[in-house]
């Protein structure tokens, strides 16, 4: 005690405390990794999900995770519109998630970021939608498990179209005319999202073009696409397009609140729309832009990937297999109990009674007839390049040809990096 008194006087103790207090914030850096304990067994997994708009989805994912008894699975439910940024930034750190949902993109494969899941998918490969398998495959290896397929198309109010004497549009020009006729004092004719990004690929496909061709060369720079951009500019400046809405295209609020007569959205929102508008709702694909084109539907969706640079790759693969291959009841629940999604497993899609009749059946038909799936070679930088084309040629009064030329530079640079 006396020794303590001589070496640790009041000032020394205070100095040490001040030093520790000052070091505290440094020590705290990086400690919040979303893992909530779980003991020292190392049987812990962290998964990242973006915040789905449908009520109950977060609880559902956490319920599935809790049912897994071989590891403690913690879910990071990431709200806000920049899920991609948060995911990519965290993948660079030691607190990266072990598994995460995203879309198939080749740079994740090339950079060794995602693990090969062929081993767990191959035995059930034939039960998956072949287009989904193709969109996740590089050099014969499958890098992700599709959880849901999300067709995206236009929802419209038949009563409003009938009142305005408008038929369901079959061309982009007709869509522009319909928007004009449907616009009244309080209701705008059309809503396609605040930044228009959702309709970029559908417009390209409906113009008879594509993002990349089979040889991974630019396929979007065509006369048809330029024509489409010019028509979209006309629509944007017409005063008949709902701009600056409180929620974006993925949320059905605009059509549900009577802000517009036609809205571009996904099949996930169908239950919410039917709840509010009852039978006064129909769907149609993105109409053809040129005579050479044909209507299109973007078959979006989300897939589960395993972080190949994570600490628990094998455990994460086991969990993915358990939940997204073996647990068909959870897959069905995830696809049909909250919003409406098409299960990527053919057997589940075939038995899904909720998708057999009425509006959901129409959605499934459009999916089969006009659907386009993700192209794994179409990366984030390329997506951004075409978003810039829409920003410059549609939202700003830029020259479509110049905007496409500018995108070509970025996309070609990206293609060269990826494919040489």
């Amino acid at each position, binding site marked *: 005690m006396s020794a303590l008194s001589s070496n640790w006087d009041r000032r020394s103790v205070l*100095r040490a405390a*001040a*030093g520790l207090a*000052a*070091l505290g914030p*440094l020590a705290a850096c990086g400690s919040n990794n979303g893992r909530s304990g779980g003991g020292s067994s190392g049987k812990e997994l962290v998964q990242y999900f973006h915040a789905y708009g449908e009520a109950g989805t977060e609880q559902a994912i956490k319920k599935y995770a809790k049912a897994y008894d071989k590891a403690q699975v913690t879910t990071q439910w990431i709200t806000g*519109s*920049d899920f*991609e*940024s948060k995911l*990519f*930034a965290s*993948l*660079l750190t030691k607190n990266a998630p072990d598994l995460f949902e995203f879309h198939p993109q080749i*740079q*994740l494969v090339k*950079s060794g*970021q995602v693990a090969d899941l062929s081993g767990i998918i191959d035995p059930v490969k034939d039960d998956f939608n072949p287009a989904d398998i193709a969109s996740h495959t590089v050099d014969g290896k499958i890098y992700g498990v599709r959880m849901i397929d999300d067709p995206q198309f236009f929802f419209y109010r038949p009563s409003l179209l009938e009142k305005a004497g408008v038929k369901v549009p079959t061309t982009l020009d007709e869509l522009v005319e319909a928007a004009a006729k449907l616009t009244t004092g*309080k209701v705008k004719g059309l809503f396609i999202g*605040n*930044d228009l*990004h959702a309709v970029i690929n559908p417009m390209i496909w409906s113009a008879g073009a594509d993002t990349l061709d089979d040889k991974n060369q630019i396929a979007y720079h065509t006369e048809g696409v330029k024509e489409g951009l010019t028509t979209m500019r006309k629509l*944007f400046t017409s*005063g008949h397009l*709902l*701009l*600056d*809405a*409180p929620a974006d295209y993925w949320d059905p609020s605009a059509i549900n609140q009577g*802000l517009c007569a036609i809205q571009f959205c996904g099949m996930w929102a169908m239950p919410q729309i039917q709840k509010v508008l009852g039978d006064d709702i129909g769907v149609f694909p993105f109409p053809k832009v040129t005579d050479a084109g044909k209507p299109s539907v973007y078959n979006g969706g989300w897939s589960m990937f395993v972080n190949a640079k994570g600490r628990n790759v094998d455990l994460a693969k086991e969990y993915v297999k358990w939940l997204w291959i073996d647990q068909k009841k959870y897959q069905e629940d995830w696809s049909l109990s909250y919003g409406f999604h098409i299960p990527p497993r053919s057997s589940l899609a075939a038995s899904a009674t909720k998708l057999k009749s009425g509006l959901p059946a129409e959605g499934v038909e459009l999916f089969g007839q006009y659907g386009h799936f993700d192209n794994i070679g179409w990366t*984030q*930088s390329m*997506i*951004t390049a075409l*978003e*810039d084309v829409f*920003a*410059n040629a549609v*939202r*700003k*009064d830029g020259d479509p040809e110049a905007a496409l030329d*500018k995108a070509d530079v970025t996309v070609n*640079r990206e293609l060269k*990096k990826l494919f040489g």
Partner: protein
Amino acid sequence: MSTTTSHEVPRSAPAEATAARPRRFRRDGSTVNFWLFTGPFLIGLIVFVYVPIGWSLWLSFFEARFTVTPDKFVGFDNYRQMLENSNFTGSLVTFTVFAAFIVPLTWALSLGLALMVNRLRFMRAFFRSVFFLPTACSYVAASLIWKMSIFSGVRFGLMNTVLGWFGVENIAWLANPDPPWYWLVIVSARLWLQAGFYMILFLAALQNIPPELYEAAAIDGAGPGWQTFRHITLPQLRATSTAVILLLLVAAYQAFDEFFNLLSKTTWGRPPLVELYYTALGQAQDYGAGSAGAVILTLLICMVTLLQGTFMGFGRGEKAE
């Protein structure tokens, strides 16, 4: 230091040496205290500022997509890519436009508020607090209020409701760059957020002006109001004005939150930090190009600062001494 020690502690005088020991202990203690209190911040500075700057410089010469430990050296390719990128060069124009709006407007508004509050005979503290309070508000929160409530593009947005009373059609304040109403939204948000802070600076400066100056001016026949303001108040506020303008310029350079939250994924209205965020940390995750852009921006800021220093005469007085 050793010279001082030899002066204070003569080696041949044990008694004095004994007396000197506590003094040396105190000096050692001071050194310990110095490192104890500056050490953590120094470590923070090195870890969170100097290392990232060095790392960023290193990354700028590499192909660093989706990695911060790249191995493919690309020389000045990233620099060329950023300088050829019209979005990046356009962001410098955006900053210039923003600074041209916000610096004089904030200066004038905060000075006006300070003059007004300074004249109040009662409830001065109340109004000072009222105008200062927005400073405590987060830029993100304010941006969302501006976007969702005041300048929402639909009919139930506050501004559109008011305009609707006069028969004006709904305006898409943020979605449409033509006409560029987004500047009104961005500038008004920042004005609201920062004018109160600069008002306090001006208020302090106003209260430091000797009343005798005004008395002398009155005796000399200067009229109250504009004449006194122009010839007495404004010259007396020169130092504060210079500081305020400098701080406003620095703040304008750092603009990020309101642009990022009010304008999502546009190619217009992006100041440099937002552009670099989208390049390095957004979906592209191109740390090489983002770092090259950061280096270019840093060099540019250094050049502007040097020019500004030359123009405004910083350090001239010190040189004279």
